[in-house]
Structures are given as structure tokens and as C-alpha cells.
């Protein structure tokens, strides 16, 4: 049983944890549920799951606080279950380090797809190291020393900031990156309120990457939240 990926579901809504437990178990996951953040955190400490799915509004300890506590001790992927109307707190959770979100009500497929992506990313993260001089991800090939970028074999010329942004995207492929996170990572903490900076740079980067990409989108917009990078393949 130990080879099954472990998923911890944290939600105060008993009926939903019941469904998720059954739905995820039937797909070969080992699932446990907790009714609030506190119980979730305790289960996490004892059981060490590979992924956490959490609701935001819960008694005792809410999802935001749970994310904060989990990030203090672990890099476990966290998927947030949020409802419309909770955007602000959702973005906050993503800023803290949650990986992805699903908006209620959701189909089980959507959740499963996010679960797979998050687990895959978590497993591959080990292979991206600073010692590497070449990044290969989907359609992208990046030589870190010569700062040479090719997309589907076509060479692209990027400004230094665009290059940094692309590397950051590749290293966090598939993850939802908030405006706040991207600004802090590329421009530093003083710029975290300058959304328009980011919009301009993303626009330019998109133009360079996505012309000639046969309608493919690499940088996806998550409305009101941020961006998600999909390297293709």
C-alpha cells in the first residue's frame, strides 16, 4: 500500500470529503480526510501525505493558516478548493505557496488533472538543479550559460528580464504563480504592487514565444490571480 500516492483532504463539509475519499481512492490514491485545519495539520505530521487538498473556510484553523503552517515545514503540493467570492483569500493562499486551486463546484476530472499535474511537478522538481547548464522542458530548450533560448527549434532573442521570467516560469511549470509572486521573484520586493510592469513583460514574452507556435499558448492567464506556464508536450 505504500506505493500509492497519499492524499490528505481537509474540508469541514462531511459530504464532500466522503465523495472525494471515494472518488480519489477509486483512482488508486490512498486518501485520508480531516474536518478542519488543525486536524489536517496533525494528520499531515503523522502520515506525511504526498499532496494536500484543502478548503479555505473552516472552523478551528482555516485553509490559509494551514497553508502557512505546512509551508513552514514542507514543500508538499497544496491544492485549494475555493468558491467564487473567496478570490482574495485564494490569492493570499497562492502567495503563501499553495500550488493550485479548483473552483467549487468542480468535476472530479478537473480535480484529478490538477492532482496529477501537482504530483508530477513535485516528483520532477528534484531533477532541476542549479548545477544544470541546460534546461529542457516541453518545447523549450534553454542554455543557461550562453543564455540561448530555442522554442521548437527556433531561436528566440530575449531581454535579460524576459530571460529571468522565462527561467522562473520553466522552473515552476504548471503551477499557478500570482502577480505578487512573479514580481517579487523577478523584480524584488519593492515592485510587488506594480501589476502593469508584469503585464507588459508577459505581453512581450508571449509575442516572442507564441508567434509561430501554431496557436499554442505557453503562458496561460488565471484571471485576477496570475499566470500558469505550460511548456507543451
Amino acid at each position, binding site marked *: 500500500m505504500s506505493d500509492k500516492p497519499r492524499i490528505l483532504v481537509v474540508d*469541514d*463539509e*462531511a*459530504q*464532500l*470529503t*466522503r*465523495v*472525494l475519499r*471515494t*472518488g480519489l*481512492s*477509486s*483512482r*488508486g490514491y490512498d486518501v485520508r*480526510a*480531516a*474536518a478542519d485545519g488543525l*486536524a489536517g495539520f496533525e494528520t499531515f505530521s503523522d502520515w506525511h501525505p504526498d499532496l494536500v487538498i484543502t478548503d479555505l473556510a473552516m*472552523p478551528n484553523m482555516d485553509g490559509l493558516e494551514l497553508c502557512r503552517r505546512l509551508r513552514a515545514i514542507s514543500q508538499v503540493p497544496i491544492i485549494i478548493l475555493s*468558491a*467564487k*467570492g473567496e478570490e482574495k483569500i485564494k490569492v493570499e493562499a497562492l502567495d503563501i505557496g499553495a500550488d493550485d486551486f479548483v473552483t*467549487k*463546484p*468542480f*468535476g*472530479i*476530472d478537473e*480535480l*484529478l*488533472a490538477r492532482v*496529477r499535474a501537482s504530483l508530477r511537478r513535485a516528483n520532477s522538481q528534484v531533477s532541476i538543479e542549479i548545477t544544470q547548464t541546460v534546461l529542457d522542458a516541453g518545447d523549450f530548450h534553454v542554455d543557461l550559460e550562453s543564455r540561448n533560448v530555442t522554442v521548437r527549434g527556433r531561436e528566440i532573442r530575449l531581454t535579460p528580464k524576459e530571460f529571468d521570467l522565462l527561467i522562473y516560469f520553466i522552473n515552476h511549470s504548471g503551477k499557478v504563480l500570482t502577480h505578487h509572486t512573479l514580481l517579487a521573484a523577478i523584480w524584488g520586493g519593492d515592485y510587488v504592487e506594480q501589476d502593469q510592469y508584469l503585464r507588459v513583460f508577459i505581453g512581450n514574452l508571449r509575442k516572442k514565444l507564441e508567434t509561430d507556435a501554431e496557436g499554442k499558448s505557453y503562458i496561460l492567464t488565471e484571471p485576477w490571480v496570475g499566470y500558469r506556464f505550460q511548456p507543451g508536450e
Partner: protein
Amino acid sequence: MNLKGAGYFGAVVGTTVVTALMAPFHEQINSTTVALAFLLVVLFVALFWGSRPALLASVLGMFCFNFFFLPPLYTLSIAHPPNWVALTAFFTTALAVGQLSARARRKAQEAEAGRREIERLYQELQAVFERASQAEALRQSERLKSALLDAVTHDLRTPLTSIKASITTLLDEVRGRSPEEPLVTLDSESRLEMMEVIDEESDRLNRFIGGLIDLARIEAGELHLRRRWGAVDEIISTALTRAEPFTKGHEVEVDIESELPVVRVDERAVSEVVYTLVENAAKYSPGIAKIRISAARSDDGMIKMSVEDQGEGIAVDLRERVFDKFFRATRDGDISTHQPSGTGMGLAIAKGIVEAHDGNIWIESATGGKGTRVVFTLPVGDEEPTEQAESSAPLASKL
């Protein structure tokens, strides 16, 4: 301009009249009286029309005083030197009186204008305050509305989320899933569980919507009762039968005073109230705790019914707010039970029903200080056989 003209005219007329009245008798009247009469004209002109007409009155007065009253008469020369003094004194006094009283008049006018201005400002300020407080009330009511909307959407979306997740799990099995997933079939137990969730959550949605309709009716004052004669014990037993699924583990004690009079109430609605209270008692107290239902005549001729539990109780400052719609004293949803959580409408509806019967509902500490006792009263209602609004708008919900 007009006013100024009137002032000069007044000065001329006043002086002329005094002169005309006094000149024929200048022998009998001494010059001091004449001078004072002219001064009086100056004073009036100054008070009514201001300083310039008063100046004219002074000059005319001096002229007439000299011409008609100081010898030699009908000349502008003066025979006795003391009359020079009198004339000069008259003119100086007239000038001073005119200027001073004109100034007093101006001051009074200014004060009056100031007072009007203050009054206008005050009224304006009051209007602004009024508008501001209206805007604040509006803002508050908007805030309340949006909080209510949040509560409602949350309660609608929560069961929907479970239903959607269940149904897509079942659908996936039928349709086949994405190529990345290993082919796993649900065992029959899981399938049953998914369907149970869908069933229960659909009921929960329906209950919630029924509750919303009841609340809307109560708030619009459209909750029409079908009053009939009925027995209290029957009403209670109907409610208890319905509540059985919740009260299974509990010890339920019913204490109805013997020879209670029959009541003229909407039995279904009152039974709904009892049911809501019993369900709450079961939900918010430990599994084996006692629930006590009682009915008795109270001193003021009402029937007093109560439902008491041994749960945690409700803090004194929340005892009124729990009757507000969508207010929940605790958030339930224990993972170990499949008990759907409350809607925050039960007590609000109960209150609406009780008040529609001209009764009252409130919360007390239970006997022994532990737990909650919800009490409500109903009038015995022994007269008035008129049936009111028989068929309109029955309760929609079975909470």
C-alpha cells in the same frame, strides 16, 4: 435707488410738514421745541432710510429753523448772537443723531442678515447630515444584503459541490476516463455511496430553498395561517415522529400538563416549530443526552411550550441573534457523521410562525444551568371563529 429716492422725499416732506404745522404759531412756541421737532424728523428719516437722507433732513431742518423761526423771520440772517449758538447746536446734534441712528439701523440690518445667513447654513447643514445618514443607512443595508447573499450562495453551492463531484465520478466510469488514468471501476459500495450523497444533498438543497421561500413569506407578511382547533399533545407527537431519525440515540422526555385546553393554531406550522427545536436539540447536544419537551398553561393565559437539551448551551449575548436569518451559533459538520449541517433558517422561521400566532419565542438556560431551553408561547384563542385566508401560501419547507 427707489428706496433712496423715497428717503430724500421723506426728508423733504417731513421737514415741510413740521415747518407748515409750526410756522403759523411761531409766536407761541419757543425755538427749543421747534428744534426738537426738526430733530425728530432727522431721527425718523435716519431710522427708515439711512444717513444720506438724514443729512438732507438736517440741512433742510437748519434752513427752515433759521428762515421761519429765528428772527429776523423770512431771512437767512440771525439777529441775536445766542441764536447762532442755538442754530449751530441744532445742526451738530441733527448731524450726530442722523449718523448715529443710521449706523444703528445698518448694524441692526447686518445683524438680521447675519442671523438669516446662519439659519440658512444651519438648514443646509441639517440637510447634508440627513443625506449623509441616509447614505450610511443605505450602505449598511447594502452590506447586509451582500452578507446575506454570501450566506445564501454558500449554502446553495456546498451541496452542489458534493453533487457535482459525485456525479462526475459516476459519469467518468460510464464514459471512460482520460488515457492517463488507469482503468478503475467503482465497486458497488462506492457507487451506492455516490448516489446516496447525491440523494441527500438534493434533499438538502430542496430544504434550503423551501426555507428561503418560507422566510420570504414571513418577511413579506404573507404567512397565512390555517387556524383550526387542535390538541397540543397531537402537535407534539407529530413533530416527534418526524424528528425520530435525529433523536434515536437520545432520551426524549415529554411532559404535557393534564387538561390543557385545545388551541386554535395552524397545527402544521406549530408542529414545524416543535420539530425544528427538537432537531436543533438533538444536533447540538451529545448523542445520549436527554431532550425534554414540555407544555403547560402559563399565568397569563397562554400555552407555554419548551424544548430543552443538555448541550453546550448558547451564550447570553447570542440568544437573540440565533433568531436572525442565516445566523449560526456554531458551525457544524463533524466528519464522523453524515449529518447535513444547518441552514441558519430554522429558528428564524420558527420565530416568524410563533409571532404570526401572536406568541413569543426566546431562549433560556436549561434547568441546572447546562444546555439550552427554547420557550415559546401561544394564545389559547377561545373566541373568533372566523377562518382567515384558508388556502393561501402554506409553508413550503419541511425543515
